[in-house]
């Protein structure tokens, strides 16, 4: 079991779960349809504020921006403890400034903690932080409009929200830092909140996506997917990807 989790660490997206859509007719009036989840609690616990991502330079530490730093430190400690075998000594770890900006003291704390497990923390310089801060502010304002159908093999990547005025066909990918809205049929792969935003949502007039990814969660469509009749929105609730009917 543990080994499987560790293998997950080496992939680009950490927590890969297999999900299936559970069609519950009684709930249809309230929530339409929703995904349920298999797997053990450790995997589905969304209150993990710390995630490791593999990158070419080493490991990236993605820290939740919404909680206190002490909580993060505790969470990180638990995570490191449970994965001692996995980390090779001397691996460099950095915190992408895009996700959470750390103070100098917090960086010191991190360095100390990681050193216990033989990891080297690479500090972000002041310049990087300033540059990223400015970028984040601009990017947040920008929403990308795509006024065409995305065909197989085509990909849209954007740091902010993405609006597609057309279909997303099988084999096409939309990766957004924010929300994704598709005014058409979505049959491809959609990834909202790709940089860790678990609040991100995916809305489509006909949501038939082969995979729905939000932040570090991946939900796969069941093998037999029925045709949706309403505009639906996918979001994370209590560690599940839930599909709800929305009116827009």
């Amino acid at each position: 079991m543990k080994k499987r989790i560790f293998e997950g660490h080496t992939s680009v997206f950490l927590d890969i779960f297999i999900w299936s859509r559970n069609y519950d007719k009684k709930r249809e009036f309230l929530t339409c349809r929703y995904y349920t989840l298999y797997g053990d609690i450790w995997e589905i616990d969304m209150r993990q504020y710390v995630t490791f991502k593999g990158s070419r330079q080493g490991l990236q530490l993605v820290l939740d921006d919404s909680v206190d730093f002490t909580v993060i430190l505790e969470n990180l400690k638990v995570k490191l403890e449970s994965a001692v075998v996995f980390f090779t000594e001397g691996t460099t770890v950095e915190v992408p400034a895009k996700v959470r900006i750390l103070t100098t003291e917090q960086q010191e704390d991190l360095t100390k903690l990681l050193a216990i497990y033989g990891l080297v923390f690479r500090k972000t310089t002041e310049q990087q932080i300033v540059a990223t801060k400015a970028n984040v502010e601009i990017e947040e304002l920008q929403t990308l409009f795509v006024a065409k159908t995305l065909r197989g093999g085509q990909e849209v990547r954007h740091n902010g929200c993405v609006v597609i005025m057309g279909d997303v066909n099988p084999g096409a990918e939309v990766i957004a830092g924010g929300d994704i809205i598709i005014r058409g049929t979505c049959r491809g792969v959609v990834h909202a909140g790709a940089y860790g935003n678990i609040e991100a949502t995916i809305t489509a007039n006909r949501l038939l996506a082969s995979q729905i990814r939000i932040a570090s969660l991946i939900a796969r469509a069941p093998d037999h997917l029925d045709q949706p009749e309403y505009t639906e929105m996918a979001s994370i609730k209590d560690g599940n990807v839930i599909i709800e009917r929305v009116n827009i």
Partner: protein
Amino acid sequence: MGDVIVITSGKGGVGKTTTTANLGTGFALLGKKVVLVDADIGLRNLDVVMGLENRIVYDLVDVVEGNCRLKQALIRDKRYDSLYLLPAAQTRDKNAVNPAQMKELCKELAEDFDIVIIDCPAGIEQGFKNAIAGADQAIIVTTPEVSAVRDADRIIGLLESEGKHNPKLIINRIRPNMVKKGDMMDINDIIEILAIDLLGIIPEDEYIIISTNRGEPAVASSVSVASQAYKNIVRRLVGENVPLMKIENHDGFFSRLKKVFNF
């Protein structure tokens, strides 16, 4: 200046070459001056389908490399005087030609002919890029199979990125019986995914295999259903308004009888 049309599909075996041969012959039947270009260098077979294999002296690569003049490489069809073929080289590969050379070649052909039809190889690599380089119009051939439709979708995307918009769609090898039973992808399903204009549908027809093996395009036949479908497509391409063929089962005795008595 004539029209340059590329027949493409992404997936192999969906009927690009058959379609090229039949549309070309169909245009020739209407009296148009047509040239078929086989862009499938290394795996040529348009010449075999046209029954012109034994007349090849020079090929497309010879023309591009300047070993012969364009006129020398063109083969006149044995049945229709206004139909020509520019065969592909068999001993070379796709990299023997580049898109710029194909563009130049198509331009030259379009000056002499009303219609230039390019038979594109399967795949999305160099051969595909060569084939579409000089085309003003694209016709996508697909079959009612999920894999063929996926590939068609990818091809439409690639054509778009090359600045070739509004391709037309031909759905080949439809089996009326299976569609009726719901065992085959519906035409509407295909159109919904690909979202491009439908140029025509061609029912599955054994006669196509017979005619291909004989080296005589089926379109000239009066008994084949596929032939009628190809004729309709040609008429649509020259601007006539022809309604879509009704898909029905042509095998049964009664349906034939019904057709004869017109009820």
